[in-house]
């Protein structure tokens, strides 16, 4: 008990004094997961709107695949990204294994189906005639897509949050492709595991508090979004 209590007190101390090590791990995490979210946002938003706004044979199969992808286990992604990035692997020449870029790649793969799926769902949630109404007001196709995205902006914000929340809290892929290298690819989750194993519970708890706080923020936004109504 003492250990935990002491750990929590030290953890708060590390947080309020902006301990450089804790802060650097946090910023690195935000940077890596933020970049991965941006990449997945770009791909997922395009793919999700394309999927929502077109009809083609086999669409259901694709949508099913996207929905399955929303639950991709990070370790599976980590394994496959590792295999591709190995020196002996097909992308080995890029020398990306054990780099932050590798984590961004893996996390993007994890987050993209989430963003795609939510984009698809949120655009489909809009009234069917909304598309026609926008066209009937003289919008070009690009303006129509943009308008729809704007109308679905809150669910899309949820997509961003869900994507970000998914990747910042995952560990399997980060540790496999990033290698948990100090100050370079050591992120909140991998650092927490390592510090726990080293017995540095104070740092581990401080990192966990940051993760919890981020999770809380994300859920706060999601709750807000879910409780809003659409106009008639």
């Amino acid at each position: 008990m003492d250990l935990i209590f002491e750990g929590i007190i030290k953890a708060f101390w590390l947080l309020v004094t902006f301990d450089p090590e804790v802060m650097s791990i946090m910023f690195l995490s935000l940077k890596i997961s933020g970049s991965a979210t941006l990449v997945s946002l770009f791909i997922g938003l395009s793919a999700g709107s394309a999927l929502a706004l077109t009809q083609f044979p086999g669409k259901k199969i694709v949508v099913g695949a996207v929905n399955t992808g929303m639950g991709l286990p990070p370790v599976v992604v980590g394994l496959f990204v590792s295999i591709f990035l190995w020196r002996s692997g097909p992308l080995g020449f890029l020398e990306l294994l054990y780099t932050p870029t590798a984590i961004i790649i893996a996390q993007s793969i994890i987050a993209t189906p989430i963003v795609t799926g939510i984009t698809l769902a949120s655009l489909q949630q809009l009234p069917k005639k909304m598309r026609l109404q926008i066209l009937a007001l003289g919008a070009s196709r690009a303006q129509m897509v943009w308008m729809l995205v704007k109308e679905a902006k809150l669910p899309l914000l949820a997509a961003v949050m869900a994507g970000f929340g998914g990747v910042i809290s995952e560990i399997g892929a980060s540790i496999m492709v990033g290698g948990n290298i100090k100050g370079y690819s050591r992120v909140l989750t991998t650092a927490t595991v390592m510090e726990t194993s080293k017995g540095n519970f104070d740092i581990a708890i401080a990192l966990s508090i940051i993760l919890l706080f981020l999770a809380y923020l994300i859920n706060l936004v999601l709750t807000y979004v879910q409780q809003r109504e659409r106009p008639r």
Partner: protein
Amino acid sequence: MKIKGFLKTVFVVTAVLIAFLGAQPAVDEAFAQQKNIILATTTSTQDSGLLDVLIPVFEKKTGYFVKTIAVGSGQAMAMGQKGEADVLLVHSPAAEKKFVADGFGINRRLVMHNDFIVVGPGQDPAKIKGIKSSVDVFKKIASTGNLFISRADKSGTDVKEKDIWKAGAIKYEGQKWYHETGLGMGQTLNIASEKKAYTLADRGTYLALKKRLDLDILAEGDAILLNIYHVIEVNPAKFPKVNAPGGKAFADFMVSKETQDMIKTFGVDKFGSPLFFPDAGKKVEDLGK
């Protein structure tokens, strides 16, 4: 056409943002590609904090960037066997010899040692305290059926543990009292402490974590318990992509006088005694005497 233009804009914005935010390390990396060294090592070197002291010195001195991948000795050698690492710092002598003999590694050099210890709850329910031979200690634990935690991760520590079981011809696999974690040394020690169990640990990690653990040293000093670290360069002849100069530079650094002195004093200020004993240039047979 218009939708393409729109997507293009989004793409450019995203790309710029990524370049700005995320790829900063990736940019550093681009001109430092030849400067990367992948060091596959054991969790004990990382968890003890030794590498956190040595590597910045090395990086500053040589300009190389070391990516330390801390795994068990077994996995470290598996990485070496695929050419996914440039240099290894491991402590699993029998496997190391085979690794070199198979042509995966070259230039295996002795760096340092610490020793393994058998730790367990202070009350010592199996009554192993005072027994000199490690094999006898293990026999006692097995016969009394007290819980024993094994790392079971093919690390140097794990291999050493298995050697002792085998030396005493003790049946351990599948026994009720024998638990396998598959985790690193630090976590395994934590688990042993929580479960009031015995385990084999390297002294360095134990000392580093000691204040958090409810575990005492119950057996030590047997010759079989020596934990010897070697540095091995991965054979560039076998894997052309290996950073051979980098690996050699790191290996040379580890056996250099300066580094050996750092190893000698590492941990003294914190634990009162050193965690590792520098052995560069010595012979394995002379250790522990």
